[in-house]
């Protein structure tokens, strides 16, 4: 069924109904991926595509994006789904939908021959029977010249040869990508490109060299994208659109789990955090400004009522005294939860003007105060980087020991905690079976205004294995599961 829908869309002049059907599936998939697509937006998209010549793929894509995606953070998710649903169009991408099985043998280069002429002009030229060395040479040339069509052809070739794809396997293609890239040895090619360009222009300054290097890097990443797209196309052809889209579904940036973020997701999180903090700060500042009036000021009300003959016609209110807590952040920065601590510190410091004072402490099995790292720096990222590299947090072996860390905190800083302090403890409470020393938390709770525990683990993992969060939670005012940016933002907003 999918095949027919795809085939219908693949024909540029096909009737509109298969396209609309495909579009409906596309929108359902977007919603599944978490994008809030409303009914009106859906209708807008349907109307929009009627004004766009369907052959113009990139305009088609932007038309859909303009009507369906209203948040730039969701762009990536949109793009993935789009690529899956609409990647069959254009002759050079078509994989014969009739052929049910794929032959991934090494010499299977001429698949386009049986494709009823739809696969002509693929720029694959001398692809047939090329040796791996020749392919490597071609790759080198393509990267050197930045020839786009040649890179596409190479991506095609490389995937056919190296990925070793098997039909019917329910995978997302990361493994295939890895295999292909390993065989292409892009690092080696980069090195060769750089040394070669040095040989050609010996008098080139290092500055130019660097620019040249950046250029090659950009080309390589383009090639990678091309390879990824190629793998995806083949997988889609093999397993159908819906199944593929489901495998590729990834959480939106605000839903990415801190504990299991990949390197790429981390980078996107880092990018997302800055606008988020800015927005949060603006929102909080505004809230404070337009916040409600304080409680009734009885004395002043009676006083003014005298001028109305004792009738309290003009009630007076106290000015609200904004409660500005002192914040103590105590964060576990051992490997497993470091990322979480980093984002929380970032957010807390970004809105530090909402608090009278922010003091931060980090620990693994030892504990160190890092407040000074944040003094007078305008770049929070830099400060956090220093926290992770310079703070003295290892006492014995560098495995989390909450008990000892709390003991140190209590001895050194316990006296500073007062009735205005709000204490935030960040960590998964995986204590490596050390003593919990949970009496300290009790002591802190007695002295402090509030104690919150933020745990980056899903609730169902708590108190399993060496996690002893339950022992501590007894003495905390609240404990929160904070696994992604959305939850973190909610928490921080409530805190203020």
């Amino acid at each position, binding site marked *: 069924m999918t095949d027919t829908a795809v085939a219908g869309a693949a024909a540029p002049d096909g009737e509109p109904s298969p396209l609309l059907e495909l579009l409906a599936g596309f929108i359902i998939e977007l919603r599944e991926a978490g994008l809030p697509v409303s009914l009106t937006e859906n209708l807008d998209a349907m*109307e929009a595509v009627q004004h766009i010549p369907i052959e113009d793929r990139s305009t088609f894509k*932007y038309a859909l994006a303009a009507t369906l995606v209203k*948040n730039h953070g969701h762009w990536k998710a949109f793009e993935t789904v789009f690529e899956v649903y609409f990647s069959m169009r254009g002759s050079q991408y078509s994989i014969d939908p009739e052929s049910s099985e794929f032959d991934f043998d090494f010499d299977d280069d001429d698949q386009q021959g049986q494709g009823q002429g739809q696969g002509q002009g693929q720029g694959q030229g001398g692809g047939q029977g090329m040796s791996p060395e020749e392919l490597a040479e071609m790759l080198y040339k393509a990267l050197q010249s930045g020839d786009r069509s040649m890179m596409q052809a190479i991506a095609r070739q490389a995937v056919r040869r190296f990925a070793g794809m098997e039909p019917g396997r329910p995978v997302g293609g990361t493994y295939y990508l890895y295999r292909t890239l390993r065989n292409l040895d892009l690092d080696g090619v980069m090195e060769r490109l750089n040394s070669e360009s040095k040989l050609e222009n010996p008098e080139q300054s290092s500055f130019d*060299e*660097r620019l040249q290097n*950046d250029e090659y890097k950009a080309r390589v990443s383009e090639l990678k994208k091309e390879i990824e797209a190629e793998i995806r196309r083949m997988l889609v052809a093999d397993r159908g659109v819906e199944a593929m889209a489901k495998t590729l579904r990834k959480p939106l940036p605000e839903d990415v789990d801190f504990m299991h973020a990949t390197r790429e997701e981390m980078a996107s999180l880092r990018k997302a955090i800055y606008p988020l903090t800015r927005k949060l700060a603006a929102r909080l500042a505004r809230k404070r400004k337009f916040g409600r009036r304080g409680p009734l000021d009885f004395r002043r009300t009676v006083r003014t009522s005298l001028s109305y003959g004792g009738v309290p016609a003009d009630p007076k209110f106290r000015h609200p005294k904004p409660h500005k807590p002192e914040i103590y952040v105590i964060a576990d920065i051992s490997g497993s939860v470091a990322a979480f601590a980093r984002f929380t510190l970032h957010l807390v410091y970004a809105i530090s003007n909402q608090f009278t004072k922010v003091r931060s402490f980090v620990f693994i099995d030892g504990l160190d105060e890092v407040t000074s790292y944040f003094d007078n720096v305008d770049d929070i990222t830099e400060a956090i980087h220093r926290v992770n590299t310079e703070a003295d947090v290892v006492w014995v072996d560098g495995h989390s020991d909450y008990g000892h860390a709390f003991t140190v905190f209590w001895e050194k800083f316990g006296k500073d905690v007062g009735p205005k302090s709000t204490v935030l403890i960040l960590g998964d409470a995986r204590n490596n079976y050390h003593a919990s020393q949970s009496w300290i938390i009790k002591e802190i709770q007695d002295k402090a205004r509030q104690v919150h525990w933020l745990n980056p683990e899903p609730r169902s993992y708590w108190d399993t294995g060496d996690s002893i969060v339950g022992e501590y939670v007894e003495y905390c005012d609240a404990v929160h599961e904070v696994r992604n940016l959305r939850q973190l933002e909610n928490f921080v907003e409530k805190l203020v």
Partner: protein
Amino acid sequence: MAERFTDVPTVRQQLREVDYLADDGISGVVFLADRLGKPILVEGPAGTGKTQLAKSVAEMSGSRLIRLQCYEGLDEAKALYEWNYKKQLLRIQAERNADGSWEELEDDIFSDEFLLTRPLLEAIQADDPVVLLIDEVDRVEVETEALLLEIRSDFQVSIPELGTIEAKQIPLVFLTSNNTRELSEALKRRCLYLHVDYPEMDREKEIVLTKVPEIAENLADQIARVVRSIRQLELKKAPSVSETIDWARTLVLLGIDKIDAETATETVNVLLKYQADIAKAVKDFASNDQLGS
């Protein structure tokens, strides 16, 4: 309603003629906005030509640009219309000795003559084709946003004393936002969304060539490359397109025809505006030198 544009490539071509280099996304969305009669919500980093897009579209379609600059505290009186009460008072005083009835006077002082039109009303009343630019819409409060929304959705304004004024033509509307707060869902739903990002290297080079015609091509090329490299650093504020253009102008004025690490270090303050960023970039240029040697 007459369509302004024939197809997407034409939009792109015409924008180019007024020195605005659009990519597929931009020209496609502008075209759609006309066809669907919807406003465009333009978001993106500062200095990527969001406002310029509206201006260029106005120029290319020969329309008048009406601009409403938003700020915190913007209200109906500043956005829509206001009665010129000083003039009304004068009128009443002048009338005091004459023996016209109150009704006549009332009709008189609530007429077009005493109405101060503000940008929104002006856009609706216009006979000639107009492009309405609502700039930095994220600065107004949510309540004002609703006002903008209401007017935009049916293109009519009721003034109690005058009756309803309906738009004679539907203007092309651009809203820009710097994303300092989340706009309401309702507003987003009604708009076409366009994210304008930093341009690709090739496009940036072309932009430099267009905006600084006296520049040599290889210098423009180098500029685009350096800017791309700088944007890859983790900066507080990456250089915007306008800053790239400023830098290009600076280099041309200084008579530099080839950038090396030294000139880049000396002039980088045109591109970057934060001390920490400048330090980072300079360090990057320098560390690179050591690597090379």
